[in-house]
């Protein structure tokens, strides 16, 4: 957290001109809490999960993608396109692994992922309507996409949504 503060304050170069102009002198943090349901199936593989940020009129920003990062020869990326909506929205334009974005798959349970503005794929958010999108794709299993509306004001914002099959509750809280 200390590090992310420093980057947000001094790392103007990684921010776009628009966000840099509007960036207040405090760092934002987006906390995304998601639940991967425990499924009693004969063959279970941890899902590939992508989290990205959408705003109308702006390109999607990948915040995190969880996959088999440790496969030999970067072999895990072959199946990233199975996170199909993310692949179209953002994934196919990324080179992975990417610092601050790639991560290992997670076990069933509730996980909190924090994204500090200016670090990894997370921009500083100006007030407006955003959508945090979480998509989970499981090998020999299902695929589900949950869209969390996030109305950002000067004081932050929060939103939540729930999946039915491959994702449980998803919460997004932007604080500063």
């Amino acid at each position: 957290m200390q590090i992310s503060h420093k980057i947000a304050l001094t790392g103007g170069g990684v921010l776009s001109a628009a966000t840099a102009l509007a960036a207040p002198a405090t760092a934002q943090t987006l906390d995304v809490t998601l639940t991967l349901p425990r499924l009693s199936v004969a063959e279970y593989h941890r899902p590939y999960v992508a989290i990205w940020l959408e705003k109308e009129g702006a390109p999607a920003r990948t915040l995190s993608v969880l996959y088999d990062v440790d496969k030999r020869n970067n072999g895990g990326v072959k199946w990233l396109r199975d996170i199909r909506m993310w692949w179209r929205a953002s994934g196919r334009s990324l080179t992975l692994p990417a610092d601050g974005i790639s991560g290992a798959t997670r076990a069933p349970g509730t996980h909190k992922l924090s994204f500090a503005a200016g670090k990894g794929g997370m921009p500083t958010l100006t007030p407006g309507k955003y959508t945090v999108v979480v998509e989970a794709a499981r090998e020999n299993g299902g695929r589900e996409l949950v869209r969390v509306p996030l109305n950002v004001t000067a004081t932050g914002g929060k939103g939540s949504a729930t999946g039915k099959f491959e994702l449980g509750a998803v919460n997004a809280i932007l604080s500063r």
Partner: protein
Amino acid sequence: MTKFRKLLLLAAAFTLPQMAGAARPWMLPSETMFAGSGNEWLTVDAAISSDLYYFDHPGQDWQPVVTAPDGSTTQVENRAVGKLRQTFDLGIKSKGTYKIAITNAMLMGSYMLNGERKMLPRGTTPATLATAVPQGATDVQTATATTRIETFVTAGEPDRKVFTTTGKGLEMVPVTHPNDLAVGEAATFQFLLNGKPAAGLDVVAIPGGIRYRADLKQMDAKTDAQGKVTFTWPEAGMYWVSVSSGGRRGPGGEAPGTGSPQSQSAPEGSGSPRPMSPAQDRAIYAMTVEVQG
């Protein structure tokens, strides 16, 4: 004359086996989205069928032509023509959009030889016309039947180098990239006929999986003055998008010179031979696109 017109019609019907009727020509890619790691494989099925995408007609010995993302032509592997379909593989070695196309141009027509009208043999192409017409033949009449079947796949991000046109038959120029389609979003395609905007043509889009549903779910649109149509995709999956021009039958679509009841009842050999109404050129275009959702 009348007899000849009937013959010409018959010939036209035979020259395009199953292609002008209800059966649909198509290619189906195993994937349309690739990571672009350089060592991935695509398999394509190619067939004619009435149900999309099932195999229920004889396999066709079509020659697929693949355009790689840099615009060069690249080879397919393991091409085999089976009883009900053709199949082949393609190595996806570079990033960008690949075009897989099957094109077919055939000539229908006839010529006069020693006072008799003879049909061009079935399977005559522009390249074989010179040898198909014997010495001394006069009044050679031809019409072209062009078929183009396409599909597209992309490794990494879509690009547009493969969408060059030839000016022959019906061709698709993307406004929306065919590998960038999603549920609920509108996609626009432009169609050209012999290089010019194909205005006023009927275009259909039908999702695959016809066999197990009651509703065909066909979407209909007509090209505007620029030859453009727009579809908004109601669900995810593979869609067959097709348009054709010329040689249509039925209400309002009768080709000129295809024999009105009046001319059919005219006595054989009556009057002097009138100039033939040339058979109409025909063109068919069909592509398979994947809609994400």
